[in-house]
Structures are given as C-alpha cells and as structure tokens.
C-alpha cells in the first residue's frame, strides 16, 4: 500500500514539473459508458486536428490530457476539472458532452484562469455560466428553428411535435413551436415521451389520431432513434405521407446504417453532415477517419472538437503560450474561419458559434446511407440565447 502511495506521489510530482514549452489541454468527455461513441468522436476530432496542423504552436508543444466522464454527473465533473487544473496544470479545457457537467465546471474557470471550449453541450444558457466559456458545437434551438421554415415552405399547416422528455427535447419543442406558429402554422398536439421509452407504437398511434400532416420529433442520438424510426415506418405513417422532420441528432451518421431503408427521405436540420461537400471537409473526414479507425463511427461531436482545437490554437497564439484566460477568450471573440461544416464565426456577445444550418435528406448513395444537404440557412446564431 505504501509503495502504491509513493508511486502515486512520484507520478504527481513528475507531472507537476512544468516544461516551459508544453501546453496542456484537458479534455473531459464520455470515453466509456452509453455515450462512448461521442467521446470517441471528441478524440477523433482532436487527433484529426493534430494530424493536419501538427502538435506545435510557435515553439510550444500541445499535450492532451483525457478524463472520462461516462454520464451526466456534475460532482464528478467538478472533481475532474479541478484535478485537471490544479494537479495536471492544464491551461485550457475542452470537451463536455452533457450540459450539467459543463455547468459544474464553469464556476472554477475564473479562479483557475482557464478558458473552457465546449465541444458539445447544447443548452443555450450554458454560455452565461462564465465569461470564459466558448462553444464550438451548436444549440438545440439553433438546429431546430430552421425546420419550422422548412415545414411552412413545403406547405405543411398542421404538425404534431414529439420529443424526449428532458432538457434538449423541451428546447427542440419550444424552438420549433415558436418558429412554426410565428410562420402561421398550427401545432395540433405536443407530446413528450419518457427518456427510456422503447416501444414507440402507442406514440405512433397518437400521431395518427392527431390528424397532423407531419411530425416534428427530437430524440437524442443513439439507440432510441432506431425503435422510433422503425415504429414510424411499421405503423404506416411513412406510407401515409406523414413527413418526419427532426434536428440532425435523430439521424447521426453512425446510426444511419442501423436505421437502414426506414430512414430514407427523413428530413433533418443540423450544422454538420459527414457528406458535406467542401475541400475543408474532405481533409477533415480523411484525417478523422484515420483517427477513429472506422469510417462508420464518425459523427458530429468530432467536428465540434476539431473546431474547438482551432479556437484553442488561436488562444495559444494570442497569449504567446502564457496562461491568461481573459486575453485568450477576448482574442477569439469575433473570430471567423472556414470549418469543415462551412463558414463559421464566434459571436462576440455570447461566445457561441454562428454557422450555417443545413436541411438534409437521408439518401442512399454509393453503397452507403448519407445525410444529403439540400438547402442552406446561412449564418444562424442561437435564437435560444438570452442575455443574462
């Protein structure tokens, strides 16, 4: 036991000896657990960025320190973040898949003099938790709002909304209902389903009975989407022409193969599709595929991480490698660049990413299922954000 303690002590001491030119970035994400796929995508995005840009900025070498946070657990998030800052000596924090985890880490940023770049957590108010939070992913409001316009353009008047009953689901419902009613549409019903619903047939029966022309749905990316889309088809809604509309979480690329033909024609709005046609994305997909090892597993968190690394690199350039969170955050306000997802910029007011939102249709091309972009909503901010 004492030898164990000594080894640990030695490890701690050796890790706290600062090399003048090594800059550590702490990344907290779900690397195991139910969302392990998304954590793996964080890592793929980071590795892709390092492969393309190298791991040095000016004279400084970047080192990534990973910490696993398998589920939403604020107290563990706070402990891991604190450990990264005070024990590992990280100068930047990245990652954070779930909102409560990012919220728990936010209060210590200012005292720790560390900026946080959120790679995923998508609740609008998160950026208000600390002036040192920058976000390179999306918000559910941002991705859901354009769908209201899509529905109206396609001549849909009556819609039922069906969402998973938790924060992001409620955000999606609010965003869509606000946009759709403002555009003169009618919401015939709004249903919320418990998170662990597995048989969606009764929900489909409700959709049928509601007389809606289309259904707007939100479910988190992952297993539940399979049962939902399958029930939608098997209960005859697809054949009856009840269009399924959703933010892109419902059709993330790794799930598409499992959804199969059932998903064909599904319309989603989202900030990123792996099939996006641009030289930047081609380079990104190539590098990220090498990093993740299996092309089918590549998904949207990877691009959040990739752009997050870009933002952190700009912060490092601006501070010359010194630990200065205020300068670093100030330097990236208003920053604009061409991301794999298209042109993006950091809104100086709320430090959230402004980006194109694409309407995509699930299609089968060249032997694989893809989200095919068919319409672009340019320069979308976050409609869900309110100044604190």
């Amino acid at each position, binding site marked *: 036991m004492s030898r164990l303690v000594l080894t640990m002590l030695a490890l*701690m001491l050796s890790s706290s000896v600062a090399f003048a030119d090594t800059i550590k970035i702490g990344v907290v994400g779900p690397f195991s657990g139910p969302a392990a796929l998304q954590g793996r995508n964080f890592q793929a995005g980071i590795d892709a960025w390092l492969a393309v840009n190298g791991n040095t900025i000016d004279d400084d070498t970047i080192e990534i320190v990973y910490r696993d946070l398998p589920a939403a657990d604020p107290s563990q998030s706070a402990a891991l973040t604190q450990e990264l800052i005070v024990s590992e000596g990280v100068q930047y924090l990245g990652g954070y898949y779930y909102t409560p985890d990012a919220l728990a880490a936010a209060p210590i940023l200012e005292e720790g003099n560390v900026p946080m770049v959120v790679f995923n957590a998508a609740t609008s*108010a998160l950026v208000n938790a600390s002036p040192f939070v920058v976000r390179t992913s999306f918000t559910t409001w941002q991705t859901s709002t354009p769908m209201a316009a899509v529905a109206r353009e396609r001549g849909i008047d009556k819609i039922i909304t069906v969402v998973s009953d938790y924060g992001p689901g409620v955000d999606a419902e609010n965003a869509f209902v606000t946009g759709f009613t403002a555009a003169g549409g009618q919401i015939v019903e709004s249903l919320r389903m418990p998170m662990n619903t597995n048989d969606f047939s009764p929900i489909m029966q409700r959709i049928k009975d509601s007389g809606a022309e289309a259904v707007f749905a939100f479910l988190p990316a992952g297993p539940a989407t399979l049962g939902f889309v399958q029930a939608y088809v098997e209960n005859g809604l697809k054949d009856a022409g009840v269009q399924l509309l959703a933010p892109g979480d419902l059709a993330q690329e790794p799930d598409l193969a499992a959804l199969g033909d059932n998903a064909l024609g599904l319309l989603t709005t989202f900030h990123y599709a792996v099939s996006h046609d641009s030289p930047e994305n081609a380079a990104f997909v190539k590098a990220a595929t090498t990093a993740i090892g299996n092309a089918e597993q590549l998904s949207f968190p990877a691009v959040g991480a990739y752009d997050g690394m870009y933002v952190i690199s700009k912060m490092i350039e601006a501070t010359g490698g010194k630990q200065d969170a205020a300068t670093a955050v100030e330097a990236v306000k208003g920053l604009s660049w061409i991301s794999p997802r298209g042109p993006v910029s950091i809104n100086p007011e709320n430090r959230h990413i402004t980006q194109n939102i694409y309407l995509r249709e699930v299609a089968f091309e060249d032997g694989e299922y893809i989200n095919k972009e068919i319409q672009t909503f340019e320069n979308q901010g976050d409609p869900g954000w309110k100044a604190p």
Partner: protein
Amino acid sequence: MSTVSKARPVVQDMIAVLILAGIAVVLFFLFPTNLALLTRIIAMMLLVLSLDLVTGYSGVATLGHATVFGAGAYAAGIFAAKFGVTDPLLMLAIGALAGAIAGALSSLVILRGHGLSQLVLSIAVVSLAHEAANKLSQWTGGSDGLSGILPSPLFGVFRFDLFGRTAFIMAVVLLLAVFVGLRIIVRSPFGMLCRGIKQDPVRVRAMGAPVYATLVKMYAIAGAVAGLGGALSAIATKVVGLDSLSFTTSAEALVMLVLGGAGRLFGAMLGTLAFVWFEDRVSAINPFHWLTIVGVLLVVVVLFAPKGLVGAIEAIWQRLRRARP
C-alpha cells in the same frame, strides 16, 4: 466494572475519531490537488453510511437509496438558488431535514415488501423521484441540472476556494460528527433492536417491540445522514444533477457497501474510499476501457474477500495475532 464497560466504547470512539482525523490530515497534505475528489468521496461515504444503517444494520434491501441523497441535495440546492439561503451550515441542516422526511416517506412504501419485492419497491421509489425531479424543471433545472448555487463563505470567513480546502475540511468535520453520532446510535438499545429485527423480525414482534415504527425511525435517521451528504455535494459542486437521484447512484452505493463490508461503519467508509479512488485512478490511466478492470475487481473481491474489505482485513489481523502468541 460497569463504569469500565461503559467507558470503553467511548475510549474506542475517541481513538477511532483520532485515527480518521489523522488519515484526513495526511490525505490533505499528501493530495492537496485532489481535494475535490476527496470531498466527493466523503459525500458518497455519507450516502453509503446511511445505506449501511438500513441495509447492514436493519436488513432492509434497497436499490433506491439515492432517493434520500438526492432529496437532501435538491432541497439544499433549491433553497440556495431560489430563496437565497446560502449559508452552508443552514444548507446542511435543510439537506438533513429533507433527507429525513424523504427517508420516512419512502420507508412507508419500501417496508411493505420483503427481500426481492423490497428491492423492486425501492427501485420504483427512486425511479418515481427521478421522474418527478425531471418534470419539475422550473425548480430542479431538469436534466440541465440545478445551477446558480452560490454558497456564502463558511462562518462568513472561509470562502469555498478553487482547491476545495474549505469544502474538504467542512466535509471531514461533518463526517467525524456523523460517525460519532452513528456509533452511539448503533450501540444504543434502539440500534440493538434494529439488529434484532434484521436477524428475526418475527421474534422481535413476538417480544412486543414495534418493528414497523422502529424501521421507519431508522429510515428517517438514515435519510438525514444521506441528506447531509447530498447537501454537502450541492455546496461543494454548486450544481445538482439528476444523477444524484438515480438508480445508478443507488446501485453504486450498494456495491461500495458490500465491497467494504455491510453492517460495519468502517466497512461503509472503506468501501466507498476504495471504490471511488480505484475508479478515479483506473479511469485516469485508461479513460476508455477502465470499466472492465473495475468489474474484475468486484469479482475478485467476491472470490477472495466474501465478507468485504473490512472482513478480509480482520481475517488477516486475526491470523497475524494467532501467529505471534
């Protein structure tokens, strides 16, 4: 003679408290950068100690004990975030009270079952509480978590700092106080009665003792202890999430208790420390595949230390003593 037998446990308690305080001081200086983790462990210890009271001492099987932990965390958090009650000691008191109420209420349901059905009732209770907290998102923040908890400095002087020193010291003092209180309770006639109920409820009832009322009372006490843990977690983390009210947390607490050794206060504390610390270290070394190693640890413990870590340590101790007469 009688004075000696009464005095001995008090002396033992003093020694135990001194040892625990000593360990805390050593940890404080040995791992000054891991205090948030240690505070999290102490909050979990309070939950596992509480579980020990109902499971280890009173024989109530439960996989839903996070109900009382979450009740304390949310009560303290809501009072701080929505009503401006930010004094940490007041928040602890609110947590304990909420935990006690939640404990007494949930026991009314859980005590209706035995063995397996009791487990299922406890799962139903924690699931209902989890759903309710998710639904009442104006109060609890739902799945986004309850944020905006800003505890004021302890005694108006000691700020809750980045290193977590204040939170850790407060947690240690709290743990020691609870430990002493629980030692007294489990030795009291009331505690003995609970153990009797665990061994043979029918016989205790035949002796004329109120089984049901006794267990409800124990549940309320256990609820207060876990509620303190929840409130401590809310103060130290400044955010309360739905995980504090989940089946997963309940199951983890049970695993920690059995790992350490049920029916012993030291078992509850050692099990928590060993499990969380091990998990933290292993997951830092390999963030991707650590779960397998934790699983192997649990299997190994069952195979080689079926009475938990404390049981194993005692067995080794006994053997050493026998070896040197």
